[in-house]
């Protein structure tokens, strides 16, 4: 059969985001493939060098639109390390609530969105609609639906509004009730299982070769490798949670793990609301003076958090000035999105290309930056 060249993306409905993969296809099998990133490249790292430490607050969350909060967190953490700032206790817990809500929203979109590549649109409609309820909570807390700019260096930007805890708890109950319905619709469906079981494998060697992290890694290497566990930040060392892990990573397992992680996120939020100090300061100043002249002591530091897709890290370099000297971003899906597409997408059928992107957790904006 003739080899045909096909473009998966950037405007392909099977592609999440403005990303592209070139595939050379023979019959239905992909022979070669290449990632074509850069459609969302905005030069963030350069722009960040041109804005004040505080002004970057507007830029930071925009690096990854699906889950912006880990960006804010990792940026804040870096500055706090460089400037040796003690974050107030309450702020730590608020941050955890925000981060877990964001993870919940991202995972909800993901378990709903898994319907799109396999044609089960009902779950997409459900997932996104339920996620919207979380965005409502975000709007109440932070003042914006998507780009929150809430976790700031030194703490959080504002205290929680009154009575939001009850609303969050109610929402968690609702989502907890909805999860089995999603599971019935998607995961227990024999057709879905036929498509995803023993398909799109991620062996342990590949994990180490590429540097895949997150659910993909945990499901393959049979260890609870999660930044929240390995090097806890905020107050993750003071809540109880356990993450799923296993030795065999196929598409089904990876989606299945997301359900378990969501249950864990819900549990973490509940614990946080319970353990959080009821009042107290929520923000420490990072430097003297007006925000126009905030400076961060010189140094270099790498900080990372666990996003819904894995290790999210910033390398922050300060020369002591009013603006960062250099920030390098490690998007969590960088390895699988670029090298994974090149090396491990070939061999799959084109039917599975979109599913591959989805279950591997390829997120375009954080790769392109």
């Amino acid at each position, binding site marked *: 059969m003739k080899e045909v060249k096909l473009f998966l993306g950037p405007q392909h409905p099977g592609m999440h985001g403005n990303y592209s993969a070139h595939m050379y296809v023979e019959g239905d099998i992909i022979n070669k493939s290449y990632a074509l*990133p*850069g459609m969302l*490249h905005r*030069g963030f*790292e*350069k*722009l960040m*060098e*041109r804005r004040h430490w505080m002004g970057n607050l507007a830029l930071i969350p925009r690096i990854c639109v699906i889950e912006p909060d880990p960006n804010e967190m990792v940026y804040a953490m870096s500055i706090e*390390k*460089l400037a040796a700032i003690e974050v107030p206790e309450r702020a730590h817990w608020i941050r955890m609530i925000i981060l877990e809500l964001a993870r919940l929203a991202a995972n909800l979109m993901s378990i709903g969105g898994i319907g799109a590549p396999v044609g089960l649109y009902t779950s997409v409609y459900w997932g996104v609609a339920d996620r919207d309820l979380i965005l409502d909570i975000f709007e109440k807390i932070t003042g914006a639906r998507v780009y929150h700019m809430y976790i700031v260096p030194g703490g959080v930007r504002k205290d929680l509004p009154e009575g939001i805890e009850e609303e969050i708890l109610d929402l968690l109950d609702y989502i907890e009730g909805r999860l089995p319905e999603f599971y019935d619709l998607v995961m227990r469906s024999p057709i879905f299982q036929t498509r995803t079981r023993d398909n799109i494998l991620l062996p342990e060697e590949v994990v*180490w*070769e*590429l*540097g895949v*992290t997150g659910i993909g890694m945990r499901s393959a290497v049979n*260890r609870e*490798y999660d930044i929240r566990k*390995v*090097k806890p930040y905020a107050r993750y060392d003071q809540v109880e949670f356990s993450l799923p892990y296993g030795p065999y990573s196929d598409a089904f397992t990876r989606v299945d793990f997301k359900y378990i992680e969501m249950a864990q996120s819900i549990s973490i939020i509940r614990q946080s609301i319970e353990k959080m100090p009821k009042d107290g300061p929520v923000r420490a100043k990072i430097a003297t003076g007006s925000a126009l002249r905030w400076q961060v002591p010189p*140094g*270099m*530091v*790498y900080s*990372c958090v666990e996003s819904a897709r894995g*290790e999210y*890290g910033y*390398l922050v*370099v300060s020369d002591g000035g009013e603006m960062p*000297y*250099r920030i*390098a971003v*490690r998007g969590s899906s*960088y*390895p699988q999105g*670029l*090298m994974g597409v090149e090396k491990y997408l070939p061999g799959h059928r084109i039917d599975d290309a979109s599913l591959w992107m989805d279950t591997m957790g390829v997120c375009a904006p954080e790769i*392109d*930056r």
Partner: protein
Amino acid sequence: MNSTNKLVEEIRQRFEIIDVIHPDDQQVILDIDKMHLHTLLSHLKADGFRQLSLLSAVDWIKDNIFELVYIVFNWDTGVHVLARVKLPRDNPRFRTITPIYPGAQYYERDVHEFFGIEFEGNPMSYKPLFLELWDEMPPMRKDFDPEAYSREKFPERVYVPHFVPKVEVIE
């Protein structure tokens, strides 16, 4: 810092380390001569640092050097090691680390695109990745001015304001 001290001791015994910095208790920055970087990374990889988290560069234009930062991670101890080497800024080139960490391939391509650092032994790294038809110096270099470039390439809007500035004399 206790967890990293042993590690640093061990590395010090084997390699000539120029400087050690501890940004936090689970992180070590090692300044090392570029001659020894590859052996250091091999050693670290065998020592449990199986993941290359990030490879990036910093342009120290005042000192006329590029600094490459290799960040490797040990998932069992949770320690990040940041190995740094310095390269001259004119005609910067270095050997690839893809034989040690295959995942570095695209990071090197990334660094080549944004800083113009060449990685010998990684032919892929010479190709463009994010940018298309780029005709300027690598954009992450400090002497590149994105705003000027943007103005020249992408003209800005000039507004014709609708509003009549409202005259309300404040006493």
